[in-house]
């Protein structure tokens, strides 16, 4: 087809050879470049990549310590750790997340909520290749389903972990609080301090409320480490060295689960709070707010439905009335007002007044009525306490004046949070001349003092404060700071009671006379708590109180039965027993309970009977 001369062929060969030599040189140059590159990586950067490869292979894995347990004073377990199996996913290992989740859904069921939570955790996770929980609380069957299909589920695993459990459930929900997953805000806070960042490097749960939060540092424990060789899938090939975590301290609280569960039983169907304190130590025996909730719901993350049900419940189960419910102390304040007047020397046990059913200030038309329209007639201090005469205490309050009353009441802890370790406790409100000027930009009027005489008006106190004041009263003015903590591990905590000055009355005999008057509240013929007499097992001093529900105007009309119920007065009762050597002081508030003698009183009595009966038996 075509012909070339011999000369052409020789030229062709020469051309080809020269081109081949050019390319051979280029090839040698490029090979040299590869060698240079390899030398650079393998010699110059060898140390760097050696470290990187070691870091790849060797991982320091933190191991979370077991959280300390919580016991009550009788050694009954209040918070424990139980094993729970969770389904975890390492997103980097999953080829198709939607498909994987759909498959898991067909196997064991993955709810919409599980997915939402998973996506949230995925967004906020800390380290790459960290497994993320997709579902909690797998049953044995579900674990088997996942394991059988594991081959089709790369990146999916079942992980055992200890999860907090509260065996007593609702009875201790408010006081113990609960642990929950560490959220973004908490994580940021933990990470801000290198020490806490280290301690929490493996921890997933943290105390959110109550004693769990207060004693977080003690309960948490010390993180452990495991030096492991892993493959790229994060699977551990071998453990090179291990430092075991140190479990958190077990703590024992002063709480008495007998009283706590009894309180729960007695207050069924009511809204209210009960606080009981051991007089000799200040130890809180019971701190119960009703209605309550199941803290176990919160541990692994509460469902939206459950949470809305709790949040929207008109009885406010999430609201801890013991420390955050601020009520007018009402007539339970009268023994303290009485002591103030006695100590100020403006009256004595003999002096009487004539109660016509109302009290009037000089130069003022307004009538301050007694709860008993016809009046109590001739009353002295004792009778005024027993029958809860308002007119007497209007008179005494006005005579003492706010400048005497406010500091005197303050000594009993009103208006301040005096607790050692109760988190989130509110201080109540102890009004004074200065407070009113600051808060209301207004002068203190004599009328304000009148209202204060019967524990109404501006004055507010939490049930815990009422119980604390009662305990101090029962302890003849000697302060024992209210506390939950009893012991760490097996060592009883000896925490000093601080420098709160004890209350010294000019005449200590006034303590005993007041105790006697309060005893008569129950045993007296006209005592406001005389209904308690049939069940009286131990000499007991008490005082009833009826607080008007504020914030609802009298002329407004409410048709609904439920709303009318909410307009009823709150029933209050404070008590301590036995009178001669007080062991327990108690305060009970029943919202809209109306009659303290009928509602709050019997509850307090059954707690006292249970406590003292149990102690003797």
């Amino acid at each position, binding site marked *: 087809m075509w012909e070339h001369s011999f000369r052409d062929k020789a030229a062709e060969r020469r*051309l080809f050879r020269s081109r081949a030599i050019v390319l051979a040189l280029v090839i040698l140059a490029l090979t040299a470049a590869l060698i240079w590159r390899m030398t650079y*990586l*393998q010699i110059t950067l*060898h140390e760097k990549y050696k470290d990187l490869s070691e870091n790849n292979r060797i991982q320091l894995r933190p191991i979370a310590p077991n959280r300390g347990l919580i016991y009550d004073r009788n050694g009954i377990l209040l918070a424990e750790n139980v094993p729970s199996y969770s389904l975890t996913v390492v997103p980097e290992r999953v080829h198709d997340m939607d498909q994987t989740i759909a498959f898991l859904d067909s196997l064991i069921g993955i709810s919409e909520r599980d997915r939402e939570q998973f996506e949230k955790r995925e967004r906020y996770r800390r380290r790459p290749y960290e497994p993320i929980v997709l579902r909690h609380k797998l049953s044995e069957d579900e674990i088997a389903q996942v394991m059988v299909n594991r081959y089709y589920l790369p990146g999916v695993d079942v992980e055992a972990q200890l999860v907090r459990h509260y065996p007593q459930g609702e009875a201790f929900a408010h006081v113990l609080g609960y642990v929950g997953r560490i959220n973004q805000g908490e994580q940021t806070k933990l990470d801000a301090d290198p020490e806490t960042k280290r301690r929490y490097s493996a921890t997933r749960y943290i105390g959110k409320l109550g004693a769990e939060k207060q004693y977080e540092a003690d309960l948490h424990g010390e993180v452990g480490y495991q030096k492991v060789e892993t*493959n790229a899938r994060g699977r551990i090939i071998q453990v090179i060295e291990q430092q075991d975590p140190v479990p958190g301290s077990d703590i024992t609280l002063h709480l008495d689960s007998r009283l706590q569960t009894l309180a729960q039983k007695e207050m069924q169907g009511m809204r209210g709070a009960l606080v009981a304190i051991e007089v000799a130590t200040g130890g809180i025996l019971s701190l119960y707010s009703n209605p309550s909730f199941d803290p176990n719901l919160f541990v692994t993350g509460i469902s939206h439905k459950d949470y809305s049900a709790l949040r929207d419940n008109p009885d406010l189960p999430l609201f801890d009335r013991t420390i955050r419910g601020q009520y007018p102390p009402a007539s339970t304040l009268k023994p303290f007002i009485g002591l103030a007047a006695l100590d100020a020397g403006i009256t004595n046990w003999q002096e009487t007044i004539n109660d016509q059913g109302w009290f009037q200030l000089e130069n003022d038309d307004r009538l301050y009525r007694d709860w008993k329209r016809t009046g109590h007639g001739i009353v002295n201090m004792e009778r005024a306490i027993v029958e809860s005469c308002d007119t007497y205490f209007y008179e005494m309050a006005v005579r003492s004046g706010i400048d005497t009353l406010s500091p005197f009441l303050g000594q009993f802890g009103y208006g301040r949070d005096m607790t050692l370790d109760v988190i989130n406790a509110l201080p109540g409100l102890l009004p004074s001349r200065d407070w009113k000027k600051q808060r209301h930009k207004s002068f203190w009027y004599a009328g304000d003092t009148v209202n204060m005489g019967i524990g109404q008006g501006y004055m507010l106190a939490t049930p815990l404060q009422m119980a604390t004041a009662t305990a101090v009263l029962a302890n003849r003015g000697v302060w024992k700071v209210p506390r939950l903590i009893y012991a760490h591990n097996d060592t009883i905590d000896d925490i000093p009671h601080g420098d709160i000055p004890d209350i010294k009355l000019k005449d200590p005999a006034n303590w005993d006379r007041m105790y006697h008057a309060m005893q008569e509240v129950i045993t007296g013929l006209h005592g406001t708590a005389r209904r308690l007499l049939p069940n009286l097992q131990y000499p007991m001093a008490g005082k009833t109180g009826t607080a008007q529900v504020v914030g609802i105007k009298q002329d407004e009309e409410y048709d609904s039965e439920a709303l009318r119920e909410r307009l009823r007065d709150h029933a209050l009762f404070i008590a301590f027993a036995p009178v001669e050597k007080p062991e327990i002081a108690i305060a009970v508030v029943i919202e809209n309970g109306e009659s303290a003698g009928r509602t709050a009183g019997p509850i307090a009595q059954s707690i006292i009977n249970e406590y003292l009966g149990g102690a003797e038996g």
Partner: protein
Amino acid sequence: MASTDFSRTIGGHHHQHGFGRSQALFARVHLDLPLTLLILLLACGGLLILYSGSAQDLNMVKRQAIHFGIGLSVMVFAAQLPPRIYQNIAPWAYAVGVIALIGVLVMGVGAKGAQRWLALPGLPRFQPSELVKLALPLTVAWYMARHPVPPRFSHLVKAIIIIGLPTVLILRQPDLGTSILIFASGALVLFFAGMSWALILSAIGLVAASAPLMWFFVMRDYQKQRVLTFLNPESDPLGSGWNIIQSKTAIGSGGIDGKGFLQGTQSQLEFLPESHTDFIIAVLAEELGLIGVLILLAIYSLIIMRCLYLSSQCETLFGRLLSGSLSVTFFIYVFVNIGMVSGILPVVGVPLPLVSYGGTSVVSLLTAFGVLMSMATHRQR
């Protein structure tokens, strides 16, 4: 003459000792003894590295050995066919290849967003681009050899069209790496045919200028991602940067003498991805160190130099052009793969010739060697 030194170092078949007799014996069956031995050496070394890179999967090594068995048989067979046959089938092979490539675009199967395989009933699944790897240089060499060299401009234009058609079709799959290699194999024929330096330089300039246009109009997102990751692997350490970071770590941590065979933590603990295919050199570099890498590069260099020498020994222009292109293409595979794994080139899926696991690649490379030996050993009567 420079070629004398060249032939002495690379060739040296003038001695009639034992090796020379075997060489003569081999030449009678149209094989080149040094090249065959080098290929066998590389194959054996490759199988050893594969044993380590496949997580000591003996079955995979056996399958690869079978690939070599098939490939070597095809190589021997291809070497027996006289160059004239290749010359005659060249345009037909090209036509079949191009039709198959169109078939892939229309009805191909594939994974990860790319269609590369053609599954025809009654035939084993295959990648038409592998066929074109051989058919294109064959056809361009056939075309260029029909005209006097150095070629005229009009012939070059027609040759560029012959090269461009399959290149664009493979680019559409999309498979940037293969299309560049296919283009290079055709362009190399033009270079060997004596295309003028002025044209070569202006073509290079044109390619450089069109790079930005490629970026905006031709390249797919995943290809752009690869380039971005190549420029800064740390930008996505868990995604597309993972491969390159892990392979560099494997290579660098190997040091001079390596961690020992089967002792590479990067490879054995599965940190290194694709350790039995594209990234297998990292296994070698980690376990046998720089020494292992240099030995491998030495074997490759000897193979390529021997091939270039054989190319220059071909009797026909067609043979020279084709062999030269095949030889240099082989080097491009080596360079692109090692450059990619060591992080000086972007990640384009090019296997390490005769070492990476894969039947198609092994068979087509050995076929090319067979064709090359046919060109170099057949003498016209």
